[in-house]
């Protein structure tokens, strides 16, 4: 049986550290690099990436 955390923000990838807190945050100012980091993180965490707008991406496990 798999034990997992669901419906919680597992990681935040943003361009400005002031916009985010409370979850592991990765600050990546450059947009294409942000997409890359988000992609790798989501594959590792087996989560889905959501775009909150304003340069903020989150990874959530559903």
């Amino acid at each position, binding site marked *: 049986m798999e034990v997992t955390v669901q419906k919680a923000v597992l990681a935040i990838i943003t361009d400005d550290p002031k916009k985010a807190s409370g979850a592991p945050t990765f600050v990546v100012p450059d947009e294409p690099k942000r997409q890359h980091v*988000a992609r790798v993180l989501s594959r590792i965490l087996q989560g*889905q*990436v959501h775009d909150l707008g304003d340069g903020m991406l989150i990874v959530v496990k559903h």
Partner: protein
Amino acid sequence: MTGLAMPPGSNGSFPHASAVGLGFLLGMLARVAMLRSDYRQYPTYPHGYASHLFLGGIAALVGAVAIPALLEREWTAVTFLVLVAQQFRGIRDMERKSLKALEDNELVPRGADYIEDMAKTFESRYYAVIFVSTVTSAGVEGVSVPGGLLLGALAFGFSALLMRKRRIGDIIEVKSGTPSFRGPELYVGDIFIMNVGLEESRRTIEEKGLGAILIPRDEDARDTLGSPGQRQAIVHDVQAILGVSKEPDTPEFSPVIKRDLETGRAGLFFVPMEKDEEPMLSVIRRVPVLESARRRGSRALAGRYAAD
């Protein structure tokens, strides 16, 4: 008079032979006819088939022997037969456990509702077998051999009618819909599905994704479509037939159904292994309406008052 040579020690012919034999035969035929693995890949061939045929044989025998035992006033036998018939309650548990054990490893799980529905169906098929073989054997005893066969066939027809499944296509209109994006938001037609943050995933969805729009034909259908168990069943079947182009690390390609609460319609989206729209639509139409999900609010008095 020539006839079959009797083994030494037997006291003559077996008067109920045709009743038991035909009852058993028709019961087995009924079980075989109902043993449709179809596309749901369950029971798993060949071991599942073997165990269901074996149990079907027992059920057919129980039904076939019951009436002759009664006629011969063999009450002990009748008691045993009733006990055996009761054992078939265990079928539901057995099927449920078996299906649940597979759930964790499915890319797209069935959901508890669907499992329950399948388990109930399996159980009731055995009762149908007992019914058919009992009716056949009673018919042969009470009427004649052809009469028994006819009654058995009628019993099978009657059971099939009682147990027939409604399909989604009966209550919901299924049309194709195109997945499209407004920024990171995925829509099928004009129904919002979900937010997809990765550009790469958005591109994959645009190239390979398929969508459908489900339009309930009436209020009851609308409420049935609202049931998460029903939606999970649709999603599972679509994936089982068409294959889903995802791994556990790309959850965004899983089949998803989202409702538009204003109109009661729902949008379905997923990324299949083969992008082929018509098969997807026909799979959706053939998904069974789950008994637990099926809403018949219009049958209740309050439901009728609430109708708009």
